[in-house]
């Protein structure tokens, strides 16, 4: 008892306790929500782990890269350049361009965390990936996010995704010497993205945007530093937005509204 008891009474004041319980419940809700895509995250992490070692990185450096960078697509894009001895700025620029989609993500997710302190926003940003962002936005659009403690909910999503991804990447790094590269295991990552995107294609703007993005990305595929990816994404977004605004304007034969 004594000081410790005093302290206990302070931190377990009823209001605080309810607040803490709510936050923990939100965190666990996020952890549950990400479960269906954890297999994809695990496969993708494993694939990136195997690829780093197969691509020629020494094991300790592969582990360091996995922990610090935590971005499968940028890591996979950088590997051939590292192995070919490309200059530092080219490798970093390639990673940067591959990551440019995260700028779009961070702008889209910002309104939901605008009232959070800087430190927390930076942390949530660091842990944001294709999987966790897509899940968050899908829940937001379907109105399935909790009313309060959205940061705790997203932290739960990210915690599970990060843990599974890192453990899988470590497993892939260690096991790489036993897995023949010609199994084509890296294709699992692409299939996981297919499964992730599929359910979003039900609206006309999204479908059209995806088609335009794919066509432009194909046409600009041979641009340096994976810039084609960015061109495709931008073209697709423009197409989807235009389709969306036309759809809004035309429906029940409204006379001139703007």
């Amino acid at each position, binding site marked *: 008892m004594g000081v410790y008891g005093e302290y206990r009474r302070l931190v377990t004041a009823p209001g605080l306790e309810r607040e803490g319980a709510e936050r923990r419940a939100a965190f666990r809700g996020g952890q549950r929500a990400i479960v*269906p895509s954890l297999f*994809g995250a695990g496969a993708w992490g494993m694939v990136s782990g195997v690829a780093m070692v197969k691509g020629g*990185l*020494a094991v300790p*450096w592969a582990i*360091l890269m996995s922990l*610090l*960078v935590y*971005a499968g*697509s*940028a890591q996979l894009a*950088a590997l051939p350049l*590292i*192995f070919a001895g490309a200059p*530092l700025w080219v*490798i*970093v620029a390639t*990673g940067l361009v591959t990551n440019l989609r995260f700028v779009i993500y*961070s*702008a*889209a997710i*910002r309104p939901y965390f*605008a009232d959070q302190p*800087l430190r927390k926003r*930076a942390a949530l*940003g*660091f842990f944001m990936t*294709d999987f966790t*962002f897509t899940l968050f*936005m899908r829940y937001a659009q379907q109105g399935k996010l909790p009313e309060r403690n959205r940061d705790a909910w997203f932290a739960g999503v990210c915690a599970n995704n990060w843990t599974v991804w890192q453990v899988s990447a470590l497993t892939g790094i260690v096991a790489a010497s036993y897995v023949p590269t010609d*199994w*084509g295991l890296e*294709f*699992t990552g*692409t*299939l*996981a993205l*297919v*499964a*992730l*995107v599929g*359910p*979003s294609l039900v609206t006309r703007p*999204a479908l059209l*945007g*995806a088609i335009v*993005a*794919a066509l432009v*990305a*194909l046409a600009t*595929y041979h641009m340096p530093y994976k810039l084609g*990816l960015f*061109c*495709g*994404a931008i073209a*697709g*977004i423009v197409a*989807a*937005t235009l389709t*969306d605004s036309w759809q809004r304007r035309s429906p029940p034969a409204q006379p001139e509204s703007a």
Partner: protein
Amino acid sequence: MNDPVSGIALGVVIVGLALSTFVTRTSFLIAGARLRLSHRVEVALRFAPVCTLAAIIVPDVLMHGMNATFDPSLLNPRLIGAAATGLWLCWSRNIFGCLATGMAAYSLARLYL
């Protein structure tokens, strides 16, 4: 077989890549309310993930082999694998089923076509 790449230069590359991830992921989150987006841009951003992922997936499926040549033929194992995943997705949202079906179709196509 070359020696595995390691050393300080690689460390610098890794830190550079880590910074590129951190800066892009936190850009607007850190800038906070100082940056404003119009409603139109906000709407556009809703479609960002599906478009970006389509731009990653489709070239990855259709660009084939070491030289990344365009291969839209029905014998392209990656196209077969992705199509199998897509079909399974219409049936069920279970990602394990999707990946298992896709990888099975992809592997069979690579072995026998």
